[in-house]
């Protein structure tokens, strides 16, 4: 029995199914997904999802296309348990499915705050998170020009939402406990440009701000530990995500900040793989174990998992890539700065820069850039190649805007 079973139809699950079919025209493939409807792309949900009046989630693939590829797509049910020994899962409708190989691509859930003494009704009315198309729909239905909204957390979700809601003439305050925005995610030079753009667009960002408590009547009243109080018509919590590891944990798989996989995307059980936001993996360049939430990583990891589920021996060794759009600025980053010894900033103007991290062997580890539109896209793509090809670079040349990164690649 060599059937392929995939739990979750996000970027990872769908990409795995399509790759499996491309590589093997006969193997039975089944995807089980809790959400109904076509699999859809999540990145627009915090961007055009909130600014475009006619927005519809963009499908990754339609049900009809999956059917054409003979990929069985079961929706509206969830996997209740995995029996790793018997190689069988039980669905919420009590049906059982056998598998030869299993891919867990259950993604992550939005982390939220615990609101003490708050009714379900108030939570429903005032408090939002953003992860799914229905979360996006809930927020869309709430949006009214002139409202005051508080966004908790100056991470990517909070900041993208801020930009989108400003475009809807909403008064936005972002609360962040750290001393700057995107503290763990991007270098300071990039964060500074982005912070300025938020300021210029009228978003108020309060740093070093922790919440004491939140109470609700006709509004939300957010009391900060500083004593200051802020009123909001509603609020969105964007403080990171929690990998959906319950099924894997119950099945006895190793967990370490996500389902623990090796460079083959294989879990601690040889017939079970994981990919995307739900897994932690050893980053090939540094062996550091990381869990990433990245649209492209999810696809790349899924493609590797699919190859290995069919008996190949392929490792995931690519530099992760990520992007964000806020106002007219585009931010992109590639690689991970672990092991950085030499920070290098290339200034490209008042609202654009590239920041590189280089190790002691003069290898480029990561690059993060920001600029209007896709201004820095080419250089990030070139950086990606420099990182993946383990090229050594000159720090002076990286810092010099007149030097073409392409020439480093060709040397």
């Amino acid at each position, binding site marked *: 029995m060599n059937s392929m079973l995939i739990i979750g139809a996000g970027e990872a699950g769908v990409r795995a199914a399509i790759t499996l079919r491309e590589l093997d025209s006969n193997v039975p493939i089944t995807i089980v997904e809790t959400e109904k409807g076509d699999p859809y792309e999540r990145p627009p949900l915090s961007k055009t999802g909130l600014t475009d009046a006619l927005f519809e989630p963009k499908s990754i693939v339609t049900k009809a296309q999956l059917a054409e590829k003979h990929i069985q797509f079961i929706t509206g049910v969830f996997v209740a348990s995995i029996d790793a020994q018997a190689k069988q899962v039980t669905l919420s409708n009590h049906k059982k499915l056998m598998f030869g190989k299993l891919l867990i691509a259950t993604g992550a859930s939005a982390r939220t705050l615990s609101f003490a003494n708050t009714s379900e009704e108030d939570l429903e009315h005032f408090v939002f998170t953003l992860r799914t198309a229905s979360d996006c729909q809930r927020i869309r239905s709430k949006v009214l020009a002139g409202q005051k909204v508080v966004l908790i957390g100056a991470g990517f979700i909070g900041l993208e939402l801020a930009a989108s809601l400003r475009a809807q003439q909403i008064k936005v305050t972002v609360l962040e406990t750290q001393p700057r925005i995107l503290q763990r995610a991007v270098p300071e030079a990039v964060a500074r440009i982005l912070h300025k753009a938020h300021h210029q667009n009228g978003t108020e960002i309060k740093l070093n701000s922790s919440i004491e408590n939140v109470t609700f009547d006709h509004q939300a009243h957010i009391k900060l530990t500083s004593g200051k109080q802020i009123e909001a018509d509603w609020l969105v919590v964007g403080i990171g995500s929690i990998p959906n590891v319950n099924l894997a944990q119950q099945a006895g798989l190793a967990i370490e900040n996500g389902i623990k996989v090796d460079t083959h995307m294989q879990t601690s059980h040889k017939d079970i793989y994981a990919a995307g936001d739900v897994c932690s993996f050893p980053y090939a360049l540094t062996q550091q174990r990381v869990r990433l939430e990245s649209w492209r990583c999810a*696809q790349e990891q899924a493609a590797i998992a699919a190859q290995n589920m069919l008996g190949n021996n392929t490792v995931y060794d690519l530099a992760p890539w990520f992007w964000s759009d806020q106002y007219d600025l585009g931010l992109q980053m590639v690689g991970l700065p672990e092991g950085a010894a030499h920070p290098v900033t290339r200034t490209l103007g008042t609202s654009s820069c590239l920041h590189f991290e280089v190790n002691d062997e003069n290898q480029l580890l990561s690059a993060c850039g920001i600029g209007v*539109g*896709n201004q820095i*896209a*080419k250089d990030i*793509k070139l950086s990606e190649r420099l990182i993946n090809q383990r090229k050594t670079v000159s720090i002076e040349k990286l810092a010099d805007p007149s030097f073409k990164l*392409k020439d480093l690649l060709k040397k």
Partner: protein
Amino acid sequence: MSNWIEVCPLDDIDEEDVMPFNHSEQTFAIYRCPKGEVFATSGLCTHERIHLADGLVMDDIIECPKHNGRFNYKSGKALGAPVCEHLKTFPTKVENDVIYLELQNL
């Protein structure tokens, strides 16, 4: 009936690079391959309609600046997820170091 449109001097585009060109409400991407020959495609990625001219040209491939959709700009062929729809290509010529693009009259 065909119709040659003047684009720009050849020297305006580096070898192995791309430039945007707009004409009568259409946007195009004009490429010079590493050997210097000139090619043209429709200007927007078939995935999310991003301007390809901000992307990276390596050999015969243009990579979309946003989501890494890859196309062979000589044939227009989409080279895999997230792009599946090919790019339209257009004939080009270089005369007296000026690039021209051929559009079909409707």
